[in-house]
């Protein structure tokens, strides 16, 4: 499917927002969350640029699954490290092992359902974390109200990541053309939510 001008504009705006977020950072963040957020928004920025340059064909690459996993993993790690100090080490280990397992099951020629199970589990935990943690923190009054938008962004990234991953694995949740039609808008909305929520 050919990429349209509107798609390119939405992706460019996504890239600019992601670049801005990388440049300004998160004021209160320690070193590890700052690195995690930089990786998350950095991958989003580069992925957006590649989509603009190469078009939707780039989604045929096997690297898409890995890349669409890095964003929620890194953002959820940043959130947990900042807001759930007692879970820091546990979650860091989960992220590292989860990512490596996805990587290995992508590289090895495994024919059973294991790669999908692992991908869905790790992706799911990260997605739920990005969605629920900001919502709970906001409702508890521990953070400012706009932080709930990070949760909304988390929901959108979870949807986007799963759509892309399942598409790439040959079990699309929606039709190929529908996914490509909504993807630029989804990425833009998600980035707006994150950037606004993190202010």
């Amino acid at each position, binding site marked *: 499917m050919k990429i349209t001008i509107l798609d390119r504009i939405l992706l460019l705006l996504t890239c600019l927002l992601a670049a801005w977020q*990388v*440049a300004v950072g998160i004021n209160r963040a320690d070193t590890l969350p700052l690195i995690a957020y930089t990786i998350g928004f*950095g991958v989003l*920025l580069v992925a957006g*640029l*590649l989509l603009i*340059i*190469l078009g939707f064909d*780039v989604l045929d690459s096997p690297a898409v699954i890995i890349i669409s996993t890095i964003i929620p993993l890194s953002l959820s790690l940043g959130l947990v490290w900042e807001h759930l100090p007692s879970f820091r080490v546990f979650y860091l280990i989960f992220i590292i092992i989860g990512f490596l397992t996805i990587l290995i099951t992508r590289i090895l020629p495994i024919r059973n359902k294991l790669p999908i199970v692992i991908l869905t589990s790790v992706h799911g935990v990260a997605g739920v974390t990005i969605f629920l943690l900001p919502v709970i923190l906001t409702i508890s009054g521990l953070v400012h109200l706009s932080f709930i938008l990070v949760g909304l962004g988390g929901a959108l990234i979870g949807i986007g990541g799963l759509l892309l991953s399942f598409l790439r694995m040959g079990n699309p949740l929606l039709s190929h053309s529908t996914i490509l039609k909504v993807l630029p808008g989804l990425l833009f909305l998600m980035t707006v939510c994150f950037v606004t929520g993190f202010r």
Partner: protein
Amino acid sequence: MVTLAIVKSKLRLYWPLIKSLQTGLLLATGLAGYMSARCPVMHWYNFLGMGFSLFLAISGSTILNMWYDRDIDAAMNRTRHRPLANGRVSPTEALRLGLSLSALGVGMSVALSPLYGLIVFAGLFFDVVVYTMLLKRRTCWSIVWGGISGGMPILAGRAFGLGHIDGIGILLSLAVLFWIPTHILTFAMRYFDDYQAAKIPTFPSTYGFQTTRTVIATSSIIAALSIGMAGVLIGMQWGFVRLLVVLSGGLLLLAVASIFRPNERINFGLFKYASLYMLSAMILLSIGGI
């Protein structure tokens, strides 16, 4: 009215001779070099004077290149529609225009600052005489000299801002020198048949595609490291350094992908990303020190 129409038609004819995107990118490196030295203090008179003189010198050297290479352009599918190659502009007219713009550009540069003028002249000399006239048709290593001349605008800009040549300026110049292979060699692979038809030795035709891809990846790493180091030494804010690291990561990703999963799309993507990367890096260098 008639005069205006003639001027318009001439401008339309001359504009493709200066390769506006390439000239614009080189001009951006020069302006970034200047900004990296003078921020936060800006002298608009100098800034605009430098920009205009550099634009004239780069445009002039590009036209002289095109004048000298008109036989090559005519032999290549990609370039045979250029005004000189298809006869819409006569060689004498192009030569006069190229020499005039070059002389004006270098003259203005010398008037602004002798050191700046000398570097601008060196860039023009390396590009037109050493790269185009002496080496381009003989050896694929000519791109090294093309790279050196490509690194002159940023060195000139910084030297103009500081009043002397410093290590950071040379580092920035090296960054452009090592970025050039990513730009030119991906192009040489994309238009391999064209260069063969014109009998121009290129890296892909001399050393093969795989070696060329490795050279591109290696030079991308060196270019990214050089720009990053220069950024840190300039005192760029950490946020901008982070952004530079992210953009460099994209460049390296594509360069490595072109080695392990070589295909035309990745190759062209790398070519486009490299241009975007250089422009972004120059913007960051310009504003990052403020």
